[in-house]
């Protein structure tokens, strides 16, 4: 089993490299890459590269404590894999290029933009989305304070902000208002809930310290 798994990983990795090249090239001329085989050392590798472009590969993602086996193209981002394949839709797709923070997830506890990472690259990491932090019946202090302080309006940025606040407070339970602002630099809210998000974070930190 372990043998087979590592074999798969090796294969995936090579295909991933080819796939990543394509992702970049695809902006202008995805098809050109296929033809020139520039990254392939052997004909076999070129063959694999073309499979990587067109075909799906098996990958395993561990999301909110549960492992999921998936078959998808190496170019699929972690965000799209979560949302469209696993229907874990808390992380939102907004800017799709690492500006707005609406897709923020925790990767082994560290905040990360799921739109800037390929799903295949997120294997072996513990991925936590907002759904994995708390549920409507069992909300975290951060989630409860967001509601109490009205740190949300349309709510589309909220999963990202909630996740980012969790990350900030996990790192620094004594975070000051200024440190919270700094910690949320990577998140955009268009409705304009910032002041209340800050209040919610400060209050949540206070409550978490007491607990």
């Amino acid at each position: 089993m372990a043998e087979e798994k590592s074999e798969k990983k090796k294969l995936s990795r090579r295909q991933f490299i080819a796939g990543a090249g394509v992702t970049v090239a695809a902006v202008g001329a995805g098809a050109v890459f296929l033809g020139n085989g520039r990254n392939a050392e052997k004909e076999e590798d070129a063959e694999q590269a073309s499979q990587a472009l067109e075909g799906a590969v098996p990958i395993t993602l561990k999301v909110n404590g549960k492992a999921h086996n998936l078959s998808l193209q190496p170019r699929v981002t972690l965000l799209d894999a979560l949302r469209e394949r696993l229907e874990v839709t808390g992380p939102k797709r907004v800017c799709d290029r690492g500006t707005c923070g609406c897709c923020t997830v925790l990767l082994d506890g560290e905040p990360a933009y799921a739109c800037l990472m390929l799903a295949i690259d997120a294997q072996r990491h513990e991925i936590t989305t907002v759904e994995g932090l708390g549920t409507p019946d069992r909300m975290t202090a951060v989630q409860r304070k967001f509601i109490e302080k009205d740190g949300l309006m349309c709510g589309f940025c909220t999963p990202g902000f909630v996740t980012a606040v969790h990350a900030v407070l996990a790192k620094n339970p004594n975070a000051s208002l200024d440190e919270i602002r700094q910690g949320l630099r990577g998140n955009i809210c268009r409705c304009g809930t910032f002041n209340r998000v800050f209040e919610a974070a400060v209050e949540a930190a206070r409550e978490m310290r007491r607990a």
Partner: protein
Amino acid sequence: MAQSAQWPDRQASRYLGKDIPRVDGPTKVTGAAKYTYDVVLPGMLYGAILRSPHAAAQVRSVDASAARAMPGVVAVLTDIGRAARFAGEEIAAVAAETEEIARDALKAIRVDYEVQPFVSNTLRGKDIPDRVGEPQVNSRGEDPDTLWAQAAAVVEGEYYVPVREHLSLETHGVVVRWDADDALTCWCSTQAVHGVAGELAAGLGVPRQNVKVICEVMGGGFGSKFSPGVEGLTAARLAKAAGRPVKLMLDRYEEQVASGNGPDAYMQCKAAATSDGRILAIKADLFGTGGYSRRWAVPFPYSTYTVPNVRAAMHGVQTNAGSQRSLRAPGHPQGCFLTETVVDELAVALRMDPLEFRLRNVRGGVWDQQLRLGAERIGWSRRASLPKSGRFRRGMGAACTTWGGGGRGGSVCEVRIGNDGSVWAGIGTQDLGTGTRTYVAAIVAEVLGVSIERVTADIGKSTLGNSGGSGGSVTAASVSPAVMMAALSARERLAQTAAAMLGVPAGEVRFADGNASAQGRSVSFAEVCAKLPSGGIEVTGQWNQALQRSGVGGVQFAEVEVDMWTGGIRVIKVVAVQDCGYYLNKLATESQVIGGVIQGVGMALLEDRKMDNGTGRQLNPNMETYKVPGSLEIPDIDVVLFDTHDQVTGIGEPPVIPTAAAIGNAVFDASGVRMRRLPMTPKRFFDAQEGRMV
């Protein structure tokens, strides 16, 4: 009954007028809330639209044979557009097994374009006669040109507010599923579930009653999401052709180039004031673009001031850029910035305190009271002692706002109470993040004297009772009266049953704390429901004019710090005094005001759609170069809900109107540099300091 209906006294209420946490908060903070973008249906395909790279072109031919042949491509439409009037206009579309394949397929479509000349922005187009529409002239009093000699102060200049974008976080889009040959369900990120249902029915040629539109939650619209749009109709056609559901959400580029924007406003203006501090006359030529249409206007001079003599000509400029759509208080932030900047300049030219000058010229007592209150809250008396030399300088500025916000007739709410004690209220409105769902539940809970958790507020479906689109800040004042009337009807029915149980006249029964009580006796709400005639209660309520009102005023004061070395501007504090009538939910109302101010900060300092004159394409169709405020730009915001009457009025739009003007005036107060062009970037600060309009 209808005539006597009134909102409960806030002092005595349990919910209304208090801080009510959002009823959909738990699903939104945990990621459980399902937006249109989150819908995934079995067998669903992904749609994508091919857009013109040219700002102006005719389509000679479209060859989609290679796209059709690609594995995973299920449907292709090559007839959705035959011409491009802007870079980004829709030409063809595909549906495929995955979004990645759909986007690959777009690249395989070959379009032969006949490229034509284009004009990409107002500042170029205004000098090309056939690009400029017939002027609309706002005229009153004498011709200002006959009055300049009487003036004690005259100011003159060029001003510019750029095109801004809605930048809704959830892009426009739909998921469409055909349920029968002439019936469909459409999940749509929209501000108008009934409106979208009507447009889809008309556009697709199916009966209106066979179209079900669902929008339980939506990720921002700000005026851009009233229609299914080309993307909605295209998705429906793709789904029909494929025989499978289709999801078609715009990507960020598409959202920014093709889903609407707030038009710009360029102005050449001359204005004068008399020695006793009154505005005498304003003469102006204004130009702006709504895209390809030549229709364009902004309210100028802004109606908060008495200006006896006006000649203001509005010229719409045709450009090859995406079309305007209503953007939160359409035209008002532009009209307000232009007017308030001129007003401030007149005060300075007269060597008069800008606050005093405003007090002499505002059109009504509301602004007079609000200006005095706002001045006190920001500490206007500190203004003279703020640092005005050295690197970091501080100043204060003010501006006034006005809006309607009354309701529209036609909303219908249904309330059902079951024998099991369940309470359901349904109305086909939508919650843009304003808290609609929460006040629907709160009104019913308040009237029936039960806890808000007992009430299910069902909204966001075109199959529910009629309600209009959420634009013009009309939603609260359109929806809440219908909900109130339905709740009152339901309570009357409950009172009859309760009265029989208690042995008292129905008129004496009071509902509170989950009980029905009279003459010292009481039965629980659940017991009353159990005794209701079988089938419980089903009543509807209509909009009631007496419960709402139009017309709000407001003022904002800003305090800023200007870094004279870098041109950086930091907004320290904004005081927002907002006339708001009977607010249903204090918490959500304050959030609306805070949100308006923050969007106003964006308008003041950051937001600017940039078109490239060489290619006709937008240079910043993404969120890292079209900038909006983030956590480090947010000022301290002091919201003052200025309550002038006891009827519901919408305030979604007015708080965004005066912020940029107040900030610009504060920058002048701090630095002596008059910023007549937005956004006030560091470069523009130095341009303005050196007298360059650019």
